[in-house]
C-alpha cells in the first residue's frame, strides 16, 4: 500500500506499468485516472489549483486505503494525488488496485475514488474567464459515497 501526495505532474501509464510489474499472483489490476477537464458544466476552465495540508493529507488517504483493504480482498493499492496548480488535460489523481479476482479490484478502486472525492483533505479552486471559484463535492459525490455505508 502506497500513498504519494506531490506537486509534480505524473504519467498515469508509467505508474500502471510500475504497479503491474512482477505480479505473478494477481489476476486483475484496475486503475482510475482523474484528469483536469478543459470545461466544467460547459464553462471553460483555465487552471485548477489544489490546496493540501501536508502531514495531514497523506495519513488521511492511508486510512482510506486501510479501510479498502479491510473491505475487499485486494493484494495491493496505490494512490498518487497532485496538489498545487494543474493544467487542463493533466492528471490529478491515480488509483490502482491489484487483486486475485477482478471484482475486488474494481470495487476497491471505485470505493477509494468515492472516498477521495468527499473525504480526502484537498481543496480545489478553478480559475476561468468568470473568475475564481472554490469547488466542493457535488451532491452526486455524496450519494456515491453513501453506497458503501
Amino acid at each position, binding site marked *: 500500500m502506497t500513498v504519494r501526495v506531490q506537486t509534480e505532474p505524473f504519467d498515469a501509464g508509467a505508474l500502471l506499468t510500475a504497479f503491474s510489474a512482477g505480479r505473478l499472483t494477481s489476476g486483475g489490476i484496475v486503475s482510475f485516472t*482523474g484528469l483536469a477537464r478543459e470545461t466544467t458544466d460547459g464553462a471553460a476552465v483555465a487552471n485548477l489549483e489544489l*490546496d493540501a*495540508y501536508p*502531514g*495531514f493529507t497523506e*495519513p488521511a*488517504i492511508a486510512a482510506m486505503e486501510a479501510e479498502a483493504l479491510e473491505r475487499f480482498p485486494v493484494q495491493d493499492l496505490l494512490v498518487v*494525488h497532485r496538489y498545487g496548480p494543474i493544467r487542463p488535460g493533466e492528471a*490529478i*489523481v491515480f488509483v490502482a488496485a491489484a487483486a486475485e479476482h477482478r471484482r475486488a479490484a474494481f470495487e476497491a478502486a471505485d470505493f477509494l*475514488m468515492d472516498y*477521495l*472525492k*468527499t*473525504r*480526502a*483533505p*484537498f*481543496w*480545489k*479552486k478553478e480559475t476561468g474567464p468568470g473568475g*475564481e471559484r*472554490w*469547488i*466542493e*463535492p457535488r451532491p452526486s*459525490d455524496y450519494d456515491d459515497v453513501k453506497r458503501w455505508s
Partner: protein
Amino acid sequence: MAKVLMLGRLRDVAGWRERTLDTPPPTLSALRDLLAREDPALGEALAGKGVQAAVNKAVVRADAAIGPGDEIAFLPPMSGG
C-alpha cells in the same frame, strides 16, 4: 506560541494562510471567537457548514483545549480526486 492555518477557501476569506499567535486562547472555541472579533467575515466562514478543525494534524471537537506549541488548522469541506 501557536500556529494557525487556514485551508482552501478560508485562506482567501482570511487573506492569510498561516499565522502565529504569541498567546493562544485556552480553547478552540475561544480562538474562533478571537478570530471572529478581528474579522467578522472570517468568523462567519469558520462557523459555516462542514468546517472542521484539527489540532496537531488530528481532527478535534469544537470545544477542544489548545495550548502553546499547537498547530491549529481550519478545514472547509474536503474534495479530492
